[in-house]
């Protein structure tokens, strides 16, 4: 099969200060799984938004099945047979599965007929779903099924999938791949966006690689090594973070019987979490988002109080202390959401330095704030962590994701923590910044601090952690040395299988 389905010719889209796509051309054949590979910021999402009609190109043209194709809005794209599974932002939590699916269709059938169709299609593709459930009550994997079925009901010619595996366990990934291969066999083309090289090598027969908005190459990923692909994607050789050999010290942080009821309508509860953290240890906590990661971080940072004894630092009960008291004792944290949680978007970097460093850096005297010192501290973070910004007076929102994340991590690391907890430290961050951040965490542990890294990125955890535990529906598996675990075992832990639990 080599009939061309979608022909993309010279697509260009510029935003002020950045050319998101520069003269990109390639072909997607009918019945082909075509990978779109690139780093964060390489222009992948702009490109698919143009195909899906969310963004109009400045120049260039597309042909779909031999006809000119220039969708003015997603509706037009859907009508032409293009469907898209989004990474975020396309489900409505308070609406039912059936309502969510109806919203993604042009002419949905009556509600009874629709429910029947959902059940039918979901079973045919091995993706069971109850049409009447509220999406807010579903797990990440189930939510993705909603999106996929929403697309499948329209019998698309081209299915676009944006980073579909980032929220899935290895086992769920296998199920997804089976579904996708089945679709391919039925003649549907799939444009598969990812930055995970092994996945692409396992699934796709063609890959187009973008870097800095330009197409670098179109190749057969099965015939390239992961390293070759990575170098095309990054445009050079990559430094991976290197751990120095460390020996674990005594126990610093002891968490036992930590439980928490759900904090909101669709929140996760924490159930009886227990672990011990040693000096120099990096504990990687893996798991799919929404399994209690945010709640765990909030309990450790002090945003949510628990029973006093549940969290102990060197024998001192912390569980019912305020965040600043914990900071004074040496427990620091960096939450996942950079803008609006770890940092206030419209405030300057100086003010954002004040946000967590007030106690440990002595920036406040009897309630009055020492702004010159806060500014000096912000400047120190900026220079030591290579944060690209005009200066500490810039608003946090003006920084790119990677730079802001470096600032947020740097702000905590430079306060010399005894225990540092970070949640998704490199999510949505470019590869160079991600490597810097991982190195900083490793260096911190080498110096004797204890670090908890909560992440969905298994590669990252395998690279830097000394021990590993998985978080599943609010339960934490027993922490085990990373070196003892195989990928299969990790997958099973993520799925909730834990002999000790």
């Amino acid at each position, binding site marked *: 099969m080599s009939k061309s389905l979608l022909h993309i010719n010279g697509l260009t889209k510029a935003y002020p200060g950045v050319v998101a796509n520069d003269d990109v051309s390639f072909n997607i054949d009918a019945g082909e799984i075509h990978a779109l590979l690139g780093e964060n910021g390489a222009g992948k999402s702009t490109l698919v938004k143009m195909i899906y009609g969310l963004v109009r190109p400045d120049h*260039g*043209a597309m042909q779909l099945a031999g006809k000119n194709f220039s969708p003015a809005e997603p509706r037009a794209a859907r009508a032409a047979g293009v469907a898209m599974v989004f990474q975020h932002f396309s489900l409505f939590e308070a609406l039912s599965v059936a309502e969510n699916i109806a919203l993604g269709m042009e002419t949905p059938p009556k509600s009874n007929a629709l429910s029947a169709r959902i059940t039918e299609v979901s079973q045919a593709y091995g993706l069971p779903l109850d049409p009447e459930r509220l999406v807010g009550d579903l797990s990440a994997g189930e939510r993705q099924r909603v999106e996929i079925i929403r697309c499948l009901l329209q019998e698309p010619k081209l299915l676009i999938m944006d980073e579909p595996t980032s929220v899935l366990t290895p086992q769920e990934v296998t199920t997804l791949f089976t579904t996708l291969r089945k679709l391919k066999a039925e003649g549907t083309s799939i444009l598969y966006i990812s930055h995970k090289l092994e996945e692409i090598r396992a699934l796709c027969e063609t890959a187009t690689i973008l870097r800095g908005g330009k197409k670098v190459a179109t190749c057969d990923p099965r015939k390239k090594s992961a390293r070759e692909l990575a170098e095309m994607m990054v445009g050079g050789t990559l430094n991976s973070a290197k751990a120095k050999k460390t020996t674990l010290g005594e126990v610093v942080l002891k968490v036992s019987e930590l439980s928490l009821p759900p904090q909101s309508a669709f929140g996760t509860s924490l159930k009886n979490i227990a672990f011990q953290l040693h000096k120099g240890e990096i504990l990687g906590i893996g798991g799919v988002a929404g399994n209690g990661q945010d709640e765990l971080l909030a309990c450790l940072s002090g945003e949510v109080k628990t029973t006093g004894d549940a969290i102990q630092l060197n024998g001192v009960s912390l569980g019912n202390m305020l965040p600043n008291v914990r*900071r004074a004792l040496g427990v620091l944290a960096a939450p996942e959401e950079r803008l609006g949680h770890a940092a206030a978007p419209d405030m300057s970097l100086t003010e954002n330095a004040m946000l967590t460093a007030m106690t440990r850096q002595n920036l406040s005297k009897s309630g009055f704030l020492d702004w010159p010192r806060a500014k000096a501290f912000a400047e120190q973070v900026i220079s030591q962590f290579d944060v690209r910004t005009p200066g500490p007076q810039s608003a946090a929102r003006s920084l790119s994701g990677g730079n802001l994340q470096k600032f947020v991590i740097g702000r905590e690391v430079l306060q010399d923590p005894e225990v540092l907890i970070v949640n998704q430290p490199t999510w949505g961050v470019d590869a160079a910044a991600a490597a810097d951040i991982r190195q900083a965490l490793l260096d911190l542990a080498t110096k004797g601090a204890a670090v908890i890294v909560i992440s969905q990125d298994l590669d990252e955890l395998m690279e830097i952690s000394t021990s590993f535990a998985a978080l599943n529906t609010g339960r934490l598996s027993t922490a085990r040395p990373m070196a003892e675990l195989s990928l299969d075992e990790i997958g099973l832990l993520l799925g909730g299988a834990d002999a000790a639990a």
Partner: protein
Amino acid sequence: MLRLEKRPDPSKTWGYLAPVLAVIATMIGGGVMFALLGKDPFEAIRTIFYDPLFSEFAWYYRPQLLIKGAPLILIAIGLSMGFRAGIWNIGAEGQYIIGAICGAGAALAVYPLESALVFPVMILCGAIGGFAWSMIPAILKIKFGTNEILVSLMLVYVAEQLLASMSLGLMKNPEGFGFPGSRNLQQYASAHNAELWTGTGIHLGVVFALIAVIFSYIMLARHQMGFHIRLTGESPKAAKFAGVNPNKVVIYCLGFSGALAGLAGMFEVAGPSGQISIDFNVGYGFTAIIVAFLGRLDPFGILLAGLLMALTYIGGEIAQSSLGLPSAAIQAFQGMLLFFLLALDMLTNFKIKRTNTEVRI
């Protein structure tokens, strides 16, 4: 087609320019409104903005500027703290009334005792009255998560009924020949909030307004509490992460604005107004909301905005008597000012761009 593009950093220039442009736009919009009412727009605008300051009777109007401006500034300073934190006390009118009732009540209770202690006690009672009234929405918000906007507003109507009840009952002047309204505090030396220098319009309330401006500036710029208030408004989650106790912020913001509104009411009843009467309140509590926004929630901005708004009040009164402009026209005029300001505020955070609509296929 025009398109909005978010600026990386908020623009300082537009921060200053927006209120000025809004005033100019309101003059134009107001002029059109006055023309539709059959008045000469130029004369009306001149009467409102120029005459109080520079006409031959300006000697009478200029002190009025301070007398009308002081309560507006006092209340707006209090409100601005809350607005910065995303806590919307819009019931300042009620807190103003309760402050006046408590302040006057303290004086009437000891009448005709003459003592230097009477006035300080009144000040205290006025502030406590406004504070207590604002604690109702504050505590309900903390305990039950009740919306403070609706509660504080409902309490305005309750306070108005209390005011009516007081002026017809408990506080009615026994020597008032049956007319509603309390004794006139201007005739009770110990309780009279008199001008500190005759003919200047400066009474103790004006001094308090200035102190409030400076206090609030120091608070917001230099103090931990002010930082926490700003942080709460910018991003409640980041504030929680920084260790801010949201309940404390609610109590502080509502309490501070309530106390200042109560003070404003007390100074008004003991001075310019003189007595508790059914129509004692004239909407300062609501106009102060406009003042707070026009001043960009900045203490010194509020000082200027309060004076400007006082000017429109006085100018409006002149226009009412000399041009027959309806008094409500000024209220609409003030509302219009807030519209323009809110619309132009966008320019501090967004740039307007011309979009490239051509798509070559």
